[in-house]
Each structure stands twice: as structure tokens, then as C-alpha cells.
């Protein structure tokens, strides 16, 4: 019962932005609502947003699954290095990557540039869960298929892919929703999609109605996608009584394929990092503005503190929902999960304004204080945590709980000592994901941070909007470095299992 009560608390958090966009969208009645909704431009923006989300998701699935398979299943040289390096693009803020590309090749502006930037920085959303799933799944099945004469390609399609399907779909969902909500890359690449129309509506006319109407459109779009994906999730059961393969599988020999594979991965890294880093060097080289290092230090420490607290808080709020949806899937857990995902598709500015709206009215004592900011991050990134945790808990067999209880443990003790322990890696992944995403977040941080508190992202914004690129460059570089820490931890999760240790 108390699990459900806790889930309801989380549900309230995810409902706030939804209530807000509906209230604001209908503030002036149906007339303006419909006027915005049926503008030809709105439809055009929907088509663009969906198109961009779909193409980026497709590309990230190919790259993410391919990279994870190379690292987890083959004898690729330098697998340890690649395992970590391939996840690092997640540390790159979309706006930094986009600045780099447009500075290098201005002609990339448009859909191609937006697709390129979003694909290269978001494929780790697929890579990480698939890598985790590959490590958990029993390679003996694949071995058996091979020994029975199946061609490697058919083994991959018929045995490996189904084993990682759920992880890949979950990752792809995060990518799709992230693309729907992203503002940085699309605005710098000058490709107008729904989020940009929302920002323009605030910036150009101070008019909250069209922005809220477009917010409703985003929510509906994402709910449709989430519902479709949830059906896939609910059809399958993933738990098994053992903890996975106890024996390392012999890696697949790439042979002559190892050179092209290495080159492909190296090329990917160059594409992701070389161009943005080049632009940071240029900023330093060309500019005269100077970084105030005491400000830099204070921004770095507050970024680390805030991100860590936000990660813990988000994981704790997500926990009951993740358990409910993995163990007792029902209307409540499904709708809370659905709304959490839908919230992920809303641009940060909308979530931030919804919290301003509710904060001033119902939470004045914590308004513009750290708890409110942390709560904003929970609302923004709950879906990231839910995705990783749901998967982990779904793989922990409930029967072990029952065994523990039959041996005299209370339900809580059983859960604590069995399920939570088995799902710990997944919970760690959730925390790391939230942590690194918080480090890059800007719009909600700007509006809700305590007065006088600066994060690396707000300083970067402040300097770049004053054209002080040289002063901004160290902040961009620092975001990359500090966000790389949780990202590297993500790559290490699950390395306890024997197959990884044998490398």
C-alpha cells in the first residue's frame, strides 16, 4: 500500500507540467487554442519534429546496438577502451556540439545538421542499455544457435536482437523523446521544430497560450509513442532464476573485420569530439575575454553538488514507480510512467514555468530554493531513471523474494536483500544518467536556481550570450569533463560479471 502511496507522490510531480500546459492552453478559451492548433505552421512543425525524432532514433538504434555488440560479443582490439569511450558522447551538451559543427561547416545548418548533432550525442541512450542487456543475457544461447549451423547474421537477428530488444526499445524511446524536447541543437542548426516554436512564442510575444498549445501537442505525440512502446514492454517477462551466465562465452572472432570495425568506431569518435573541441580551441584563441577562475570553481562545485543530490532524489522518487511497473503493472504505474515519459518530451522552459506557476502558489517557502530546483530535475529526468530501473528490476526474479520470505524474512527485508541488491547496477545507471543530464541542463536551472547560485551551464550561457567566447570555453570544456565522470561509471556498470573480467 505504501508503495502505491509513494508512487502517487511521484505521480503528482509528473502531473504538474501536464496540468500547467492544459490550464495555459485553454486560458483564453477554445478559440485561441484551436487557432494555434490548426495553423498550417503547427502541422508543419509536428511533421518536422516527428521526422527528426524518427530519423535520429533509427540512426541511434543502428549505432547503439552495433557498438554494444562489438564491445560485448567480439574480440575487437581494445574493447575496454571502447567500452568507456563509446559512452562519452553523452557528456556533450547538444548546444556545444551544434556550435562546433556550425562553426566548422555553416552549410550544415538545417535538418541534416540537427540530425547529425542529435544522433552523435544521443546514441549512448541506446548503447548503454543494450550493452547491459548483452552482458546479462546468456551467450550460451547464441553459441548453441551457432553450433547448430546458423549463420552469424542469422544468429544476430534471431537470437541476439530479441535478447536486447527491450533494452533497445527503451533506449530508443529516450532518444525520441529527447529529440522532441531538445532546443539547443535545433536552434543553432536553424531547423525550426515544435520546441523552437514554443521558445519563439515566449521570446517574441510573451504569449503563453500558443506555447502551451504546442506543449499539449508534444505531450500527446509522446504519449502515443510511449503507449505503443509500453505495450511491447508488457508483453514480455525477463526474469530468470540464475544471475546470468556463469561462464564467459568465447568472443566472436572478427578476423579481417576487426580493422574496419575499429576504423568505424574511431571515425565515430572523431565525428563526435573533434569538431566541437576544435571550436572550443578557436574560442580560446580568438577571444580576449577572461575566465574568472573563482567563479569557475564555485560553478564547478555547485554543479557537482546539485547534480549528485538531484540524482539521488530522482532515483528515490522513481524507485516505487519502477517497482510497481516491473512487478505489479497496472493502470497507476502505467499512467505514471507514461506521464513521466511525456514530460521528457516537453522543453525545459515549459517545465520550468509550470514549476514557477505551482511554486509561487503552493510551495512559496521553497520557491527559488534548492529543493525546488531539485524537484524540477526530478520532474525533468524521472523518465531517464525509470527506464534504467524498470529494466533492472524486471530482470530480478520475484521468486527469490518469495524464497527469502519463506525463510522468515519480512517482505521489506526480502525486497531489500534480494531485489534491490540484484537491481543495484540498474539503479546506479539511473543515478549516473540523471547526474550527467542535470549537469547540462539550462532553462529550468536559470529560472529556478537559488539567487546567486551558478552552474557550469548557466555560466556558459551567460558568457556566450555576452559574446565572451574565450571566457565561455573553459565552462564548455568543464561540462564535458565532469559529465564524462558519471558517463564512464555507466560504462563500468555490470563489469562485475565474469565475462567482462576475462577481457
Amino acid at each position: 500500500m505504501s508503495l502505491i502511496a509513494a508512487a502517487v507522490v511521484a505521480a503528482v510531480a509528473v502531473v504538474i507540467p501536464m496540468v500547467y500546459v492544459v490550464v495555459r492552453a485553454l486560458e483564453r478559451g477554445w478559440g485561441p487554442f484551436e487557432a494555434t492548433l490548426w495553423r498550417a505552421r503547427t502541422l508543419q512543425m509536428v511533421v518536422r519534429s516527428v521526422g527528426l525524432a524518427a530519423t535520429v532514433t533509427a540512426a541511434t538504434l543502428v549505432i547503439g546496438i552495433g557498438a554494444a555488440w562489438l564491445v560485448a560479443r567480439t574480440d575487437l582490439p581494445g574493447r575496454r577502451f571502447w567500452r568507456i569511450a563509446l559512452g562519452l558522447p553523452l557528456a556533450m551538451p547538444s548546444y556545444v556540439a551544434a556550435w562546433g559543427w556550425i562553426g566548422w561547416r555553416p552549410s550544415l545548418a538545417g535538418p541534416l545538421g540537427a540530425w547529425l548533432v542529435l544522433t552523435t550525442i544521443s546514441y549512448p541512450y541506446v548503447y548503454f542499455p543494450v550493452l547491459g542487456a548483452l552482458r546479462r543475457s546468456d551467450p550460451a544461447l547464441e553459441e548453441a544457435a551457432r553450433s547448430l549451423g546458423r549463420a552469424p547474421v542469422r544468429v544476430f537477428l534471431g537470437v541476439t536482437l530479441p535478447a536486447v530488444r527491450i533494452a533497445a526499445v527503451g533506449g530508443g524511446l529516450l532518444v525520441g523523446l529527447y529529440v522532441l524536447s531538445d532546443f539547443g541543437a535545433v536552434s543553432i542548426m536553424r531547423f525550426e521544430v515544435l520546441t523552437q516554436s514554443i521558445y519563439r512564442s515566449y521570446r517574441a510575444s510573451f504569449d503563453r497560450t500558443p506555447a502551451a498549445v504546442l506543449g499539449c501537442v508534444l505531450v500527446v505525440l509522446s504519449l502515443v509513442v510511449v503507449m505503443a512502446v509500453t505495450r511491447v514492454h508488457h508483453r514480455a517477462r525477463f526474469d530468470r532464476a540464475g544471475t546470468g551466465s556463469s561462464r564467459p562465452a568465447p568472443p566472436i572472432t572478427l578476423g579481417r573485420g576487426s580493422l574496419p570495425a575499429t576504423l568505424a568506431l574511431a571515425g565515430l569518435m572523431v565525428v563526435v569530439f573533434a569538431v566541437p573541441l576544435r571550436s572550443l580551441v578557436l574560442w580560446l584563441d580568438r577571444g580576449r575575454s577572461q575566465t574568472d577562475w573563482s567563479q569557475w570553481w564555485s560553478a564547478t562545485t555547485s554543479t557537482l553538488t546539485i547534480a549528485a543530490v538531484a540524482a539521488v532524489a530522482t532515483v528515490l522518487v522513481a524507485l516505487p514507480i519502477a517497482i510497481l511497473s516491473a512487478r505489479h503493472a497496472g493502470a497507476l504505474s502505467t499512467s505514471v510512467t507514461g506521464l513521466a515519459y511525456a514530460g521528457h518530451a516537453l522543453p525545459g522552459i515549459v517545465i520550468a514555468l509550470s514549476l514557477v506557476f505551482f511554486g509561487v502558489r503552493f510551495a512559496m517557502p521553497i520557491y527559488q530554493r534548492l529543493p525546488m530546483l531539485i524537484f524540477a530535475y526530478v520532474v525533468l529526468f524521472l523518465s531517464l531513471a525509470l527506464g534504467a530501473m524498470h529494466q533492472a528490476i524486471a530482470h530480478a526474479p520475484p521468486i527469490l523474494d518469495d524464497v527469502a520470505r519463506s525463510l522468515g524474512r519480512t517482505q521489506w527485508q526480502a525486497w531489500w536483500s534480494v531485489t534491490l541488491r540484484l537491481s543495484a547496477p540498474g539503479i546506479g545507471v539511473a543515478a549516473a544518467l540523471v547526474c550527467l543530464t542535470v549537469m547540462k541542463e539550462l532553462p529550468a536551472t536559470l529560472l529556478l536556481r537559488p539567487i546567486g547560485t551558478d552552474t557550469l551551464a548557466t555560466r556558459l550561457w551567460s558568457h556566450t550570450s555576452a559574446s565572451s567566447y574565450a571566457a565561455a570555453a573553459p565552462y564548455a570544456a568543464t561540462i564535458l569533463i565532469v559529465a564524462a565522470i558519471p558517463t564512464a561509471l555507466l560504462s563500468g556498470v555490470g563489469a562485475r560479471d565474469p565475462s567482462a573480467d576475462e577481457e
Partner: protein
Amino acid sequence: MSSRRRSIWPALVLPIALIAASCGDDDAADDGGDATAGPASSSAAGTAAATPSAPAATTAATSPATTVSTDASATTDGSGTTGGTDSAGTSGTTEGGSLTLYSGRNEELIAPLLEDFEAATGIDVEVRYGNSAEMGAALLEEGDGTPADVFYSQEVGAVGVLAEAGLMAPLPDEVVGLVDERFQPAESNLWVGVTGRSRVIVYNPELVTEAPTGVLELTDPMYEGQVAIVPSNAGFQAFVTAFRVSQGEDAARQWLVDMQENGVITDIESNDDVLAAVDAGDVPIGLINHYYWARLVSERGPDGVTAQLVFPEGDDPGALVNATAAGLTARGAENPDALAFIEYLLSEEGQTYFATETSEYPLIEGVPDPEGVPPLEDLQGPQLDLTDLESLEETQALLTDLGLI
């Protein structure tokens, strides 16, 4: 059941406890952060001023400005020219008072000014920085519950919208009367202009042999596909509003249509990006505000910037001089320190700071204009009242109708 109930609550209590704990830490860290940031930045300024001989070229852009502002505050302290405003401002204030400022203006641009104000008055300024429009939206959401006493916006528009929503309190006549009449609201004193900013044409002399002298020329086939505008930018929309108000709706629409037919470039997101594109030679001509260029010059030095400016003459709407504007919230009307701050913005020190540090035009009598740009009196621009620029919604409708936003 009871054990289960107990079991889950720790999970809920824990984050709250953690948050509370870290909140305390963070407040302390903030105070510490502010305390260290202050001396550090002033010592940096001191170093720049003290070592003008060291890499002279690199400090040239910043150190004279620093010196001027120091000089200015010294002279005003000595001569007491701003005595009138200062005494008016500080009469009702208390040492150790404080005010909360929502600033749509960038921290880099106004933080030193705020430090000067704090040093001069002993009033503590709590400041939240953000984008003017987003901050305006947040102020609208906050309504009467806002913690802000003063809103200082990059454009008249955002304060105007808040004034219309009944969220701003009137300023005394003698405060609003300090500035040039062009930068006062027509009625009701709900905001006051603080600094002036001119719309300009920026062009790349390597690509444009014959620089245009006004925006009306830009529809000439000679400039086909050469001009970049930022339709979503508040400065551009203020210009279009000025066009509509001064030359009529039809003329404004016709100009926009002609520009579209002449292949105007509209997919660049910001003035900064337009300037960068013009400077890099990607785009020959752009419409921006004058200070973007001035700031790029101070970032890179005069030799590092290829782009040049044209200040349109006569009543060309492209010569609109808009203003940054400040106003008191209903809450700020109760706080004498809030008014003291607005008075400081309009004092000789405050205005000199803007002229020298941000290359914006001072709006009070007797403060010299920024260097490198024509004096404010020479900028004519369209005949209109800045309050007329509040008809932003009609501009929006026009731009939307033409598919520009």
C-alpha cells in the same frame, strides 16, 4: 502491513532530509561564493588597470574602459554632481537594506555596476539573471507572489507587457523625468528607459562594394539574397513595429514582402550569429543592434573585426533607437531600496558605466556618448513614442501572416 509501511517511508523521508541538508550547505556556499567572487573580480579589474603597459593590445579594449569608470566615480564622488539624485535615492533607504533584481541583462554587462551600487549605498542586491522574455513570462506566472522588487529588461517590450498586466508600480515623476523624453512612457510612469540602443545595418566591406545607407534600399535587386534578418528577435520586431507605426501598416508589410522577394535570409537565430556570419563573410549584410558590434570589437580588438556599421539617417525606421528599461514591481514599490537602485541606474555613475562598458547610449543630460559610434542627438530615426512599440502583437500577427515567425 505495518512493517511494509515503515519500510517505504524512509525512502521518501531520505530525499527530503538530503535536500534540506544540502540546501543548508548550498546557502553557505553561496555566501562564500559571493564573498570570494567580489574581491576576485575587483582585483582582476585592478590588475588590468594597473598594468596597461603589459600586452598593450590585449588590454586596450578593456582597461581604458575600466579606468574611465573608476575616474567617473571618483569625479562624481568629488564634485557631487549627482548629489540631487543620490540624496533623493538614499533618503528613504537604510544601510544594510536589500533588494531583489530580476535582470534580463547579462551578468557580464551589469555585475560591476551592481558592485558599485552596493559599495556606494550599502544596499545588498540579490540578482537573478535570465533571458528578458523568459523572465517576463516567469514574472507573469509569479504575479503578485514574485520575490522581485525591480525588473530590468533588455527591451521596453517585456516591461510594457508586465505594466499592461498590472504588475508594475508607478515611478515618481522626477525619476522618469531624468531621461530624454524619447525614452519615457507616454503615460503612467510604469517603467523608465535606462540606456539607448540603435538599430544598425552591419555589412562586410569585402563583399559589399556599395554600402546601403538605409533599410529601404535593401529591397533593391542589387542586394538580392544578401541581407540577413532575425524575425524572432525582439530588437527586429521593435524595428518592424516602428516601421508600422511611423510609415503605416501597408508600407511595413510591403517592405517585408519586397524583402522576402529579394531573398532575405531569415534562418539565423540571433543577432550575434548574424554579426558572426557577416564578419566571417558568409552573409554580406545584416540588421542588428549597434552594441553587438561594439562588444565584438572589444572581444577581438578593432583589427579582429571585418564587419562595419551603417547608422541609417533621417526617419528611416532602420535607425530606431530603442531602450533597455527598468520598473518597480508591486512588491518593490514598498521597498525604498528598490527605487534607490533605479535612481542609481540613472545617475551619472550608472550612465557613464553603460556608455563606457557596454557601448550603449546614456539617456540623461551631461554624460558623454560611447566612443566609435555617432552621438545620440545625431540619430534621428522614425518619429514615434517608445510606448507605441507596445503594439507588438500586431507585429507578431504580421510576421506570422508572412510566414516569417
